[in-house]
């Protein structure tokens, strides 16, 4: 798990995942909050999870010169 923190896509995903959780909790606890928070939280959640699951692409094969 700790090694995951060396992977930038995971760190970015985790950030958006946490922000989406904060927004969801805020929606649940507040009386009047617009749909905008909800839709944004959904979008951030999907993006965050996708980034956390993504793997950094492997480096290119050595390039040919001719």
């Amino acid at each position: 798990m700790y090694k995951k923190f060396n992977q930038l896509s995971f760190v970015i995903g985790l950030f958006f995942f946490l922000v989406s959780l904060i927004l969801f909790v805020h929606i649940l606890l507040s009386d009047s909050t617009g749909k905008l928070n909800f839709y944004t939280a959904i979008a951030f959640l999907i993006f965050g999870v996708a980034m956390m699951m993504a793997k950094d692409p492997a480096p290119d094969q050595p390039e040919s010169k001719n």
Partner: protein
Amino acid sequence: MNLKLVDYLIISVYFLFVIGVGFIIKKKIKSSNDFLASSRSIPLWITSLAFISANLGAQEVIGMVASGAKYGIATVHFYWVGAIFAMVFLGVFMMPFYYGSRARSVPEYLRLRFDEKTRGLNAISFAVMTVFSSGISLYALAKLLEVMLNWDFDVSIWVAAGIVAIYTFLGGLTSAVYNEVLQFFLIVLGLSPLVIVALQDAGGWENVKAQLSPNMTHAWKYMGDPDANPMGLHFMSMIFGLGFVMSFGYWCTDFLVVQRAMIARNMRDAQRTPIIAAIPKMMMPLIVVLPGIIAIALIQPALQSKGYSIPVDANGQLNYTMTLPSLIAHYYPSGLLGVGITALMASFMSGMAGNVTAFNAVFTYDIYQPYFVKNRSDRHYLVVGKFITLAGILISIATAYLAQGFNNINDLLQLVFGFVNGPLFATFLLGMFWKRSTGHGAFWGLVAGTLGAALTHGLTLAEGKGGWIAPVFEIKSGMGQAFIVAGISWIINFFTTIIVSLVTKPKPEEELKGLVYSLTEKPKYTQGKWYQRVVPLAILLLAITIILNIVFF
């Protein structure tokens, strides 16, 4: 505008993450090369997004929304004329020299290609420019937070600078670059809901167009007559001043952005970095120009029931700079408001960290090492690089306070930056593509071009600015004046460099291999699919850019 607990929580999480990135990267920093140049180890997707993010500072985000409101869709010229072509040119033609020469910085390339004095001139002017830019960015952030949220100016300055200091000091360039990628996503995803909700509120794009005069929603149609378009520019001034001189001068020679491509893992990635970065750059007007156009439509009589207004300044004029903050305040509820404010902070911090990391590399490699302390251990230069990072932050803070005390210092510094940057591309163009150009030619060309810029500004007057020698020529807009100053300085540099080069001795061809186009073996890529290769990607991007210009003609 009042923030609630949820907003502060989101801001705190952001601060925690950017500092956390610094601590994670710290373990990987073993040498000065790791700290100042990331040891050329950064993957393509990160270098590309960092390349675009280094330019996505506050002046870009807030400034372009303001320009969208003031000049309308013509602001897209800063992207579809003033960026994509230069980025593609950098990737296809110039990166092989920057990367292939193994230079650690742009000034170092100038030393290899020309001589020490040309490198010194460029390094000193660049170091001064970046550190002052960083300070102005910091001042703008603190001022914005003071106006928007009533936050204390001093606290904003020291907290923002402190956070940037922590993560750049710990992880150097890699830390800054990683955070730039996080900041990129935060800015794009944090501001996208604003565009969607504001556009919906304004009744969609067709209704926005119906509210505005046609010259606000056509990019080219009214550029034939300076009096007919909001920018007050003729299309030839636009193409030469912005599309050629300023655009290529910035994207192809400014170490702040070029540095992001120079840290790629290999030549092909270095070339592809600005080209891949051009894809989000092409789309960026959706995030930073469209909101400005929507804002100006929302204040038209037919949409006044929406309740949105752009704040006015002391003279009763629209304060365009406040367009984006006022849109955020109007449309974002608590929670998302925290995301929006964090996105604004991210843009400021991204700009500041980019400047500081470029400053410490140039100062250490191009000023300290050659002129002050040569031939010391790598450990010594690592410590110096870290010290210079802190010094850069402290100078930025001092500049921010200076800007607070003297309102005109921002204008003055921007002006001086324009004088220095305007002619620079001529030096690189001749250096890379004309083997006969010499160090004396490059040096005196830069000096003459900078003086030419100052002279042109002193003889022209636009919107009350310039004309400090004698207001001989009047120009309609400040932007037009900037393009003309840059254009003239470029021409003076170009011809001075040629004339002086022709009467001075060039370097032997053996020393110019890998530094000049005609003497360098061109990289040819036969592996990979077409979309992984430099030239097909570049052609596709240029074609899409031309199509976008036609669609919004």
